[in-house]
């Protein structure tokens, strides 16, 4: 997706470095994650974050929901959603820090922290979903 990574104009500089393979892979994961989160996250956030807690709609009953969540295919799909969502976050968030907060000099540290968080979150997701 053409998620205009860097605002060339406001950043006030021209980047001439050619993108590395790693950056290309990071962008690809950002893009895949952007698509699945755009399709799935708004409805899930609306239901589980607002409508079910407020009782506007009746939340799924526990037995049926637990059965759905223990289905192998559902587990795999939800793990995929979580991992891709985190990869989407990491890529976009680090560029927010680089450009938005002008933290260009600490790129390496920010990259390491962001993707370490993705790894930790993915392991957490696997443990929770396949518990």
């Amino acid at each position: 997706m053409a998620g205009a990574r860097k605002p060339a104009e406001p950043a006030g500089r021209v980047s001439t470095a050619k993108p590395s393979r790693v950056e290309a892979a990071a962008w690809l994961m950002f893009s895949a994650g952007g698509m699945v989160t755009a399709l799935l996250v708004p409805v899930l956030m609306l239901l589980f974050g607002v409508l079910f807690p407020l009782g506007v709609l009746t939340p799924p009953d526990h037995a049926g929901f637990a059965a759905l969540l223990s289905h192998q295919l559902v587990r795999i799909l939800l793990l995929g959603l979580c991992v891709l969502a985190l990869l989407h976050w990491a890529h976009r968030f680090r560029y927010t820090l680089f450009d938005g907060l002008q933290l260009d000099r600490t790129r390496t540290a920010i990259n390491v922290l962001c993707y370490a968080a993705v790894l930790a979150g993915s392991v957490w997701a696997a443990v929770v979903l396949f518990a």
Partner: protein
Amino acid sequence: MTYHQPVPLLWWTRRRSYVVFVLRELSSVAVAWFVVHFLLLVTAVHRGPGAYQEFLDWSARPLILVVNLVALAFVVLHAVTWFNLAPKALVVRVQGQQVPPRMIAAGHFGAWFVVSAIVAWVLVVML
């Protein structure tokens, strides 16, 4: 050595399009929060009916509710800006004719609606 022209920290407040750009970039934080909230939900469901109800009650507390409403606004912003950009990333030709960008965007919005409807149907009607 490369020369970096200094840019003020609040450069993005100068124009509306810059503000939208920064808000769109910040939507990733809401996506990360969704993962956290969702995994806490799944954990609660695995612990049993009591923990599940407790989680829903916790999510209904004003602070969490406000966080979730703000996150919802951001993920909707993400979805809308994402699907609006889709025609720029995807150029489709049918019989040598380029499919109009508006149709590509409309297709993505249509897919969004269908996926949302299926998820809502499973969670609200089936379960």
